[in-house]
């Protein structure tokens, strides 16, 4: 049986429309310019401009609980967390609001006022998965962010680690250029992804919507206003708790926000100063002895400035940027709103996997965005 839903199939059917050719575009623009010129030429001097309809502002931030069913098709990512160099709260943590909601709202305001840095950065990440039988799988990686669209990573073997798996786990869900208005489209898509025949819901809608929010918020590369909007919505999640000064598996300290999710919990640890995601954790209640993952943690160090590049990294970056169009492009997940992302990465044509060996173990992505 096909593993795509009917909505996925329809979505994919609608992709790949050719943009208008230059002649068509120019002709349409000329027609508009003539109309504009005519309007300017025929308007009497001093004629009042057309009055706009005055309407009450839309309610921009809908209450989370007012929205219906959902499920999540959004991949979590903490590997490429955005660096947002923002000011600290006056007085530091001691002056911060106490409740989870108040802390997140304050953080959202700071994030919104602070433009996303485009400086290249490097940081360490650690992924730890623990199954119900106690098997632990680790992957330790180094992540380089050259820009919003270009990144590279290299993973060393940890306990039972598969570097390729560690890399593919970094797939992004929210498009970095998503606008706040599009967030509703993302969440509505999550609703549909979890809605079955005759509108029957196969998952708890509130739970799915919360998950979508947290996954989106945890992802790197988002614009400041988008992250701020997501933070405000996360702040409205019922049952949200905060543990200030929590320690991640990499030893970083931040505010740990937790809420119940399904049979377990979702938790995200944020830098209280700039909103950077330091750790993301999922727990699930699974049958003892089933061997299913019971806990997964993705943690990252605070990003630092990128120094001199390793030769292999430099070659990888140059190849990604110069040959991006000719490299394998991953199909954008159907959940993505707004502009489409097309991400290219070098592959080995013989084995079909990321050709890390050709670049000293480094892999990378180069994404382009189009609406």
């Amino acid at each position, binding site marked *: *049986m*096909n593993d*795509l839903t*009917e909505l996925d*199939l*329809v979505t*994919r*059917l*609608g*992709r*790949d*429309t050719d*943009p*208008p050719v230059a002649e*068509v*575009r120019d002709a*349409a*623009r000329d*027609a*508009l*310019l003539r*109309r*504009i010129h005519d*309007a300017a030429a025929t308007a009497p001097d001093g004629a009042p*401009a*057309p*009055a*706009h309809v005055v*309407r009450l*502002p*839309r309610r921009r931030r809908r209450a989370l609980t007012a929205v*219906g069913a959902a*499920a*999540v*098709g959004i*991949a*979590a990512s903490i590997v490429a967390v955005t660096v947002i160099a923002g000011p600290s709260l006056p007085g530091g943590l001691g002056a911060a609001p106490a409740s989870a909601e108040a802390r997140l709202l304050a953080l959202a305001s700071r994030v919104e006022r602070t433009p996303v840095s485009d400086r290249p950065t490097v940081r360490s990440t650690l992924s730890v*998965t623990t199954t119900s039988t106690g098997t632990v799988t680790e992957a330790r990686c180094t992540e380089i962010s050259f820009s919003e669209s270009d990144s590279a990573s290299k993973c060393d073997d940890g306990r039972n680690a598969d570097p390729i798996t560690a890399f*593919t*786990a970094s*797939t992004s*869900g929210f498009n970095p250029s998503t606008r*706040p208005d*599009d967030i509703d*489209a993302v969440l*509505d898509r999550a609703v*549909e992804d*979890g*809605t*079955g*025949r005759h*509108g029957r819901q*196969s*998952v708890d809608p509130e739970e799915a919507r919360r998950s979508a929010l947290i*996954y989106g918020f945890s992802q790197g590369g988002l614009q400041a*206003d988008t992250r701020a909007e997501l933070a405000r919505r996360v702040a409205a999640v019922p049952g949200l708790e905060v543990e200030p000064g929590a320690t991640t598996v990499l030893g970083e300290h931040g505010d740990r926000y937790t809420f119940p999710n399904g049979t377990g919990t979702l938790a995200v640890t944020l830098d209280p100063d700039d909103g950077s995601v330091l750790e993301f954790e999922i727990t699930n209640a699974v049958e003892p002895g089933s061997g*299913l*993952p019971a*806990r997964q943690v993705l943690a990252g160090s605070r990003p630092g400035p990128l120094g001199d590049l390793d030769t292999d990294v430099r070659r990888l970056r140059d190849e990604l940027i110069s040959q991006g169009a000719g490299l394998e492009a991953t199909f954008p997940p159907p959940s993505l709103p707004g502009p489409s992302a097309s991400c290219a990465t070098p592959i080995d044509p013989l084995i079909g996997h990321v050709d890390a060996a050709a670049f000293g173990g480094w892999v990378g992505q180069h994404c382009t965005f189009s*609406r």
Partner: protein
Amino acid sequence: MTDLSADADAISGSTENPARFTAIFDRHVVAVHNYVARRVGDVLADELTGEVFCIAFERRATFDLTCDDARPWLFGIASRLVQRSWRTGDRSARAHERLRHERQRLSVADVSDRIEGGEFAAAVASALDRLPEAERETLLLFAWDRFSYAQIGEMLGIPVGTVRSRIARARDRLRDHLAAAGHPVPEPTTLLPKDTPS
């Protein structure tokens, strides 16, 4: 960083300085063209795209300045233009011809390339074609143009609940059509992303 008020600013500013409206064209011409092309093909889209912006310019005073994104408004104009074009003779003939060609194209390899598991492609195209127009348009605004329930409601002038029920009915019919054609699709059952524990 994205300027959320850019569309409203340009349209508002065009009341004093009409030339500012060209920013709306530059920002959304590809999206509008794509919207029309998906529904009636490239040829008619080439013709109608310019008209959409000319009409939008004439009616710019009706744009709700509290909206950040002008696309729903532009797509609403485009939608009406597409529907009106079907009622005119020569355009209708050309549009039908284009659709016929498009359906032939959709029925073979091109769509197979677009959909993983290409055996579903023709069945999906056929099932879409059999949907009632209102349901199909609502579903396509959601799936292809990626609008939220609220935006679709504003665009079509219907309540959000109606948007959702139309999408649900459309999906229901699609599933029925696909199953009848021997291509059943699975019930969505997963909550967590595929990269996370389940």
